């Protein structure tokens, strides 16, 4: 085909008049040799490869994250939104690390959920029945930790008052709708008030397991105000074991940060409980947890009165006088329990409880919007709101 026009291609050294019909140059016509211009050869061999490579590299570049050095993932776990930031990990390690965190938090959530049917509900049922319940060493360690923190807080952080939390209707995914519990029911609960001292923990001689029993049938464990911190600690432990050195694990606003964002520290914004926006910024150092308990986290309103979820075990009612407490401490479990205990202690009593619990960095915002801080906390916070809020610094 196209025989005549192919003739001139065979002329040694002749110019192929291919410009008008580039198709022709793709057909070899002479058995021995045929001359091809260098540029023609380039077209054939190189151009398709170049185009393919370009296409591939362009596709790979498209998904540029906002901060390419940070591997970030958000997912639902512990019944809240968990946000994991990792610095200086490759795609592979990042994905593995996030999977490990998710797995750890999920496992924890299933084991210690306060009201859904599961191991904790079963434990509570058997404790209420007066049984001595064998538990694994892992669970024993957690209960021991919770008991210890509760005792150090003077009982203001009290995981034994699951019954009271249920009475207030907070054992539900949605905040309660109806009226607060009748005064008589609360009085009745306070008369039988269980504390963590009623929980007897015994390690089995083999050390691999233990036994738990309760001396108060009203004792119902609810690890809110502790479980999140404890779970975040476990998640961070597992990240470190994987070789991740720089990370933030943020579970529904409470976080533990290790390492840094490369050449600068991790920057945390603390949300203002009094209104929208950020009240203060904070740069984390090394390995520490930032936990906040606020009255805005879970609450319901009935006949114009607001009832929030942080209950004072002494009164049986939501703790009064405080908007929020932010605590910085090395481990998340302690920070979590302390934020709860100091919130319950209120603007008057928080310093003493902080001393008992060994907490040095605290910010408490009272119901009038005044900001109480410890000196070591004040040094670290960079207040963001304009005008600068009134800050009351008092040593512990």
């Amino acid at each position, binding site marked *: 085909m196209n025989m005549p026009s192919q003739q001139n291609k065979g002329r040694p050294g002749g110019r192929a008049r291919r410009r008008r019909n580039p198709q022709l140059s793709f057909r070899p016509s002479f058995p021995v040799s045929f001359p091809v211009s260098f540029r023609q050869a380039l077209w054939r061999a190189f151009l398709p490869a170049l185009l393919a490579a370009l296409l591939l590299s362009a596709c790979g570049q498209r998904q540029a994250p906002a901060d390419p050095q940070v591997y970030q993932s*958000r997912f639902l776990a512990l019944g*809240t939104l968990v946000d994991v930031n990792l610095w200086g990990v490759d795609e592979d390690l990042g994905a593995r690390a996030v999977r490990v965190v998710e797995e750890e938090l999920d496992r924890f959530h299933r084991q210690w959920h306060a009201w859904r049917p599961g191991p904790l509900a079963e434990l509570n049922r058997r404790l209420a029945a007066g049984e001595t319940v064998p538990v694994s060493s892992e669970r024993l360690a957690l209960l021991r930790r919770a008991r210890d923190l509760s005792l150090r807080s003077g009982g203001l952080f009290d995981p034994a008052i699951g019954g009271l939390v249920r009475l207030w209707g907070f054992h539900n995914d949605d905040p309660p709708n109806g009226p607060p519990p009748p005064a008589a029911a609360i009085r009745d609960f306070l008369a039988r008030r269980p504390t963590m001292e009623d929980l007897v923990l015994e390690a089995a001689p083999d050390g691999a397991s233990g036994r738990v029993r309760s001396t108060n049938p009203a004792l119902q464990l609810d690890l809110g105000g502790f479980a999140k911190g404890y779970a975040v600690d476990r998640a961070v432990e597992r990240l470190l074991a994987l070789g991740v050195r720089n990370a933030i694990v943020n579970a529904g606003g409470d976080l533990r940060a290790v390492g840094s964002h490369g050449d600068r520290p991790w*920057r*945390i*914004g603390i*949300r203002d409980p009094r209104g*929208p926006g950020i009240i203060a910024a*904070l740069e984390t150092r090394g390995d520490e947890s930032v936990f906040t308990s606020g009255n805005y986290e879970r609450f319901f309103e009935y006949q114009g009165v607001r009832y929030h979820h942080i209950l004072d075990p002494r009164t049986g009612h939501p703790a009064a006088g405080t908007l929020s407490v932010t605590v910085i401490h090395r481990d998340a479990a302690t920070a979590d329990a302390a934020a709860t205990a100091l919130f319950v202690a209120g603007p008057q009593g928080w310093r003493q409880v902080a001393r008992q619990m060994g907490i040095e960095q605290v910010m408490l915002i009272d119901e009038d919007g005044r900001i109480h801080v410890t000196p070591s906390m004040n040094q670290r916070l960079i207040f963001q709101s304009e005008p600068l809020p009134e800050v009351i610094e008092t040593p512990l």
Partner: protein
Amino acid sequence: MTRADYGVAAATLLLLVLLYTLFWSESRAGFPGDGRAEAARIATADGREFTLPLDHDQILELAGPLGTTVLEIRDGAVRFLSSPCRGKLCIHAGWLRHGGEFAACLPNRISVAVVGPRTLYDSINF
């Protein structure tokens, strides 16, 4: 230079004037490095994720399992205007305008994260 050359030169000057008035007028929000965020990354209940610029004011209605959540984008910031959840934590978060700021309506499965060239906060505590 030919007459056509002069024409091209004049057109070039015109183009430059146009570019300066378009991109160098007083609204310079979003200039790289000034710390202001320029986009909101929004994730919805049906698993969609999309990014919207913060320099175009708009009201967004997003469907979730509980109903419609309304987001407002204005003056380089984004907020939850209304949401059918009971806690209203998302609305409480207020305007998000700095890179790294984040709010979510968990019951209605809608989250908003502000992304910026310079992250002001790596994580938000509340």
